[in-house]
């Protein structure tokens, strides 16, 4: 997601170009900067301003209200659960997709992108149809004492579905471009598959797994569309932080909405910066990157 920038070399520009270029270059530069300032910087500052302008005490009192606190806790718990499950399942899926050959591999690979394309609200509707009390499966599960929809499992299920592609799509390219000679050396030396994976493959792909996991977490704490349908939104029990923010907006409590938003944003931004940092620190794992050194 985050991209490293290379410096364009000015030396390559032919002699006749600069006479036409500077105007256009400055124009494009300021169009780009102004657009981002108006669309991103300004709106985000409004959130932090409204959340914090009445002082840190009132900011905390909004967050620490029983319902707000429960919502924040639920969001963090479900997001962490989702991140752990999808870190493991995503890594496994990426590994199986890259290394093994089986029927329907291409189909599965195409399927991975589906959650990116389907609107999250529609995802929520799908889960309600399947697991809701009116659905066959949902009624059966409820009969056996396991409630999915309007309960915490439904929230986790929605988050798992919505964030399914992240770890897979960050780990897959690293696995594909990874050099195999170390693994083959390990096999030759008599290491088992498990030991080889643990000692050779995992260290090489772990920055990608962590990046994918952080993106999953950042996406999970902000998820709204699928959860608002699936969770039932019972304050103190199944109301997540983004749905809490929505409730505060509806009841005209701008400070409450902004305070919780500012906290969620601070959390996501820290994660995004970490992702960027990890990708910069990442050791070269691909053949091309080794050659660059």
């Amino acid at each position, binding site marked *: 997601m*985050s991209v490293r920038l290379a410096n364009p070399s000015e030396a390559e520009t032919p002699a006749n170009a600069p006479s036409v270029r500077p105007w256009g270059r400055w124009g494009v530069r300021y169009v780009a900067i102004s657009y981002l300032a108006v669309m991103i910087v300004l*709106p985000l500052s409004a*959130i932090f301003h409204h959340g914090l302008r009445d002082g840190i005490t009132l900011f905390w009192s909004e967050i620490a209200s029983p319902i707000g606190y429960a919502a924040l806790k639920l969001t963090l718990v479900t997001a962490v659960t989702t991140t752990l499950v999808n870190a493991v399942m995503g890594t496994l899926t990426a590994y199986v997709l890259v290394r*093994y050959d089986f029927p329907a591999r291409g189909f599965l690979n195409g399927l991975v*992108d589906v959650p990116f394309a389907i609107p999250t609200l529609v995802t929520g*509707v799908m889960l309600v149809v399947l697991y809701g009390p009116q659905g066959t499966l949902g009624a059966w599960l409820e009969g056996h004492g396991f409630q999915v929809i309007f309960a915490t499992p439904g929230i986790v299920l929605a988050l798992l579905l919505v964030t399914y592609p992240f770890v897979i799509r960050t780990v897959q390219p690293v696995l594909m471009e990874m050099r195999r000679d170390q693994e083959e050396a390990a096999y030759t030396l008599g290491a088992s598959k498990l030991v080889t994976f643990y000692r050779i493959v995992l260290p090489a792909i772990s920055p990608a797994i962590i990046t994918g996991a952080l993106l999953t977490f950042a996406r999970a704490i*902000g998820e709204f569309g699928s959860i608002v349908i699936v969770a039932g939104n019972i304050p103190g029990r199944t109301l997540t932080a*983004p749905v809490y923010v929505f409730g505060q907006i509806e009841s005209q409590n701008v400070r409450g909405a902004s305070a919780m938003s500012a906290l969620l944003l601070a959390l996501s931004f820290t994660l995004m910066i970490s992702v960027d940092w990890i990708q910069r620190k990442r050791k070269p794992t691909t053949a091309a990157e080794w050659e660059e050194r």
Partner: protein
Amino acid sequence: MSKRRHSPMEWALIAIVVLYAAVLLVGPLFSILWGALSTGVGPFLREISTDNALNALKLTLLLGAGATVINTVFGVCIAWVLVRDNFRGRQFINGLVDLPFAVSPVIAGLMLILLFGRDGWFTWIADAMGIKIVFALPGMLVATTFVSLPFVVREVMPVLAQIGTEQENAAYTMGANSWQAFWHVTLPSIRWGLLYGISLTLARAIGEFGAVLVVSGGVSGLTETSTLFIFRSLDDRNYVGAYAMAMVLALISFTILMLMEFFKKRAGTRH
């Protein structure tokens, strides 16, 4: 890809992965077909062709197209500046582009309320110009544009970096101006990456719900998009209507996904 035979252990891993995808993805995908069509094709068609449903679909496509056009134009500009231009703070700008990915849609909606709602920072400007932004179409367009902003930039940047400046410089040497060089040389070289970014933008814009919900005011027939239609239909216990619209949106998303896969392959080296 090795064409060797797999051990039972490996087949077990494959089975776990396939089963996980089946339970998580395939099950819900089929359930929506069942939900929309279990009462028959008649009710499905009736629900999807009501005035409200058709207006909602039209508005969704309109907002999707609007946001896509805006983000394509500005996205190419930003990508160009980030790859070809060199100035202080470029790294900071680069970091800004990803932020909409980290912002919850509800918070994106709240931002617009804070800027243009009652007592908002810029409400006076909008009032002076006689435009209603929040609880009206302009606000919904801005919200949709915000959430889908990074895609074009992020897909065009690597392609732009990859093609280099040789051909552009050749064009300049032959006397082309900046615009001609961009239109005849740069744009054709980045087209598949750009189209991939555009299709991602469109998919995201069409599916937007949270941000639009906050700024729409939800007037059916006027400021109701397809996702808002689904939300209201569920509230009104009009399940067939909600499921029918959900299925139509899922089908539109699938079509865009197919296009995406095609563009992605054409864009080449990217995964």
